[in-house]
């Protein structure tokens, strides 16, 4: 296996991987391919969730690239952003493990594809602002000097892995309508095998408002353009249900990760800023009308405490 193949097989986001896939294609997709992809996807999800040490591997052929592509199609069809996020995190963990093993030459060859301005600088690496802010990195805490952010190899791997996770779980480019029928059929069982976040969260944070259908729907993640108002709605519901700010922050972080990953990222700090604001203004009420206007819900919930209050 030469260097180019090694990069292609192990780093799904690399130019070499894209080239490999465009040359080889996915071929004829059989049920066995989808089963292998499902197995791969669930393994990554388990690894993302696992508290026990992660058991990584190094890819020796292009099968993994095929499974990644198929997993993403299946995840897109499943409509479960929570599972998509875990898949991205699992895959990113794997890439981070592999990057940790690489010598300087391969390390730089892979990472300059994510960060074109990357330069080795003594025992550190220097990154330009545009590259640094392209991921979920907060510039205000960065060691920034003269337009360069200087970071160590481990921090760089962590950063790259976050970006890789974001790219892997961004399914916005997949046209569900164009998926082959075999994938849509297989996705039914696949979806049932995926973990579901909102149910877990609701057991932990059961409240009058948070328990409403509208809130469950928002908590499960919303798309671009709705994420900010979604965070405001959750913050108000948390406040009304009497959650401590710490509990509400945990829920808000979960919401951010459930939200759709797209070209315009939605940062945790933006959601937590909504929470801060709402907790400083306890008089703010939840407006179902606003939720409807913003497209966060499509109908009023049955037994809504808001509606009841108005009726009384």
């Amino acid at each position: 296996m030469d260097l180019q193949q090694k990069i292609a097989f192990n780093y799904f986001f690399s130019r070499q991987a894209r080239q490999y896939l465009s040359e080889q294609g996915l071929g004829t997709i059989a049920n066995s391919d989808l089963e292998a992809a499902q197995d791969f996807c669930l393994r990554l999800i388990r690894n993302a969730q696992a508290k026990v040490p992660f058991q990584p591997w190094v890819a020796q052929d292009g099968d993994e690239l095929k499974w990644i592509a198929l997993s993403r199609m299946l995840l897109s069809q499943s409509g479960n952003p929570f599972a998509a996020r875990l898949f991205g995190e699992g895959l990113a963990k794997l890439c981070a493990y592999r990057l940790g093993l690489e010598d300087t030459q391969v390390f730089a060859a892979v990472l300059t594809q994510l960060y074109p301005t990357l330069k080795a600088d003594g025992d550190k690496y220097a990154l330009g602002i545009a590259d640094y802010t392209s991921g979920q990195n907060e510039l205000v805490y960065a060691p920034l000097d003269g337009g360069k952010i200087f970071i160590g190899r481990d921090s760089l791997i962590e950063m790259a892995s976050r970006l890789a996770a974001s790219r892997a779980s961004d399914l916005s480019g997949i046209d569900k309508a164009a998926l082959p029928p075999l994938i849509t059929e297989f996705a039914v069982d696949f979806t049932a095998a995926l973990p579901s976040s909102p149910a877990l969260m609701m057991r932990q944070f059961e409240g009058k408002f948070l328990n409403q259908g509208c809130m469950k729907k928002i908590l499960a993640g919303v798309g671009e353009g709705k994420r900010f108002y979604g965070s405001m709605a959750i913050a108000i519901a948390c406040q009304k249900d009497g959650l401590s700010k710490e509990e509400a922050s945990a829920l808000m972080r979960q919401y951010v990760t459930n939200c759709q990953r797209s070209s315009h990222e939605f940062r945790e700090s933006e959601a937590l800023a909504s929470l801060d604001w709402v907790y400083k203004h306890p008089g703010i009420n939840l407006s179902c009308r606003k939720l409807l206007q913003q497209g966060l819900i499509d109908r009023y919930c049955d037994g809504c405490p808001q509606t009841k209050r108005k009726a009384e």
Partner: protein
Amino acid sequence: MIFLDSAATTKDSSAPEAAAPKEFERSKEHDFIGKHFQQFYKTHQVNVPSVSMREFGFGYEKKIDLRHKSFQSQKELQEYFVSKVPLYASYSAAFYEYPAARPMSAKNFLRAELIFDLDASPAHEGHNPVMCSHCQESVRADVIRLLEDFLFADFGFSKTETTVNFSGSKGYHVHVATEALMQLSSTQRDQLVEYCAGLNVDFNRFFTVQRHVINHRSIETISGPSTASAGWAKRILDRALAILALPEDEFVAKFKAAGYTKKQAETIFANKDYVTEQLSQGRWSAIEKPDLLVAEIAKTAGIGRNVSLDRAVTTDMSRLIRIPDTLHGDTGLVAKTLSLSELSNFDPTTSALAFDMKKTEKVIALDHYDFYFGGSSHVLEKEKLAEVPLAVAMLLLCKKKALLL
């Protein structure tokens, strides 16, 4: 009436052709302003880089009454200024393939200059409603700090690709046209503003607290920014060291303002050489309650504490911004492009004048005004006739604070 923008001389014939209110149109003050604005544009070239790729907006009563306009050439733009005489002229920081197209998505965004917009916050005691030197000075000081401490020092922006212009009223605009930065997303631009403003920063993240047990005693050590730090961490240290270098009375006052007692402040002052050395090495346990000092530093370290740094102008790439070197309809001053050296002692009331200070005009002030402009003080009594320099008359008429005789 030269002000009405009715002729379809631009590519965009579908844009609303807003007319100024009739009452205002008819006023001789408006005609007077228009006549002088027109004269200015007949003799002053407005230069807009990449003119054919920008969207333009113009205003007569409001800052922008009509937008989605585009021009193929400088000449066409200049003709527009001379024939339509807008009181306010803006262009997009963004470059588009089809700048006149509507809706916004049809324009096909290509890239956008990075803009920072600083404006004065008039909410201070003794604000002068005609021309406030306090506002002008505070915003100018913050622009210099924005440029030197943040854009050049921290961000490493190129001085040759960064331009500054006076807004023509109370603020300044910084334009950065570096190719790599012109591709930044709105979220990335937001990060830059957030960095400069230093808002929502959790300063605890620059510090680590460790507890050690030595001889059965629990000792807490605080590590924080050192001379090896960069970015905001370095800024906190630099500010702390600057405070430690103050003379005793200022030193004590600063620490008291931060929440220390007089005795605590005096103790720190007595040990300030040791504290300075320790802090430089990142050993913040050398100072009592370092969080109080950091909180005090945080109050003024960012841009926009005393002036307004308009976040939306930087992040919203569909916004229009005043065209440099055009006239501002609220003041009759030029939104003058400044070199970095000019900025250091720029006084808009003498250096951004578009109109004569020797010719005079008779006006009736609507109230009592006392202000400095054009190098001298001007006192006008309410509803009394006064003969003032043309530039002063234009300022008062644009601000609707005087009438012509």
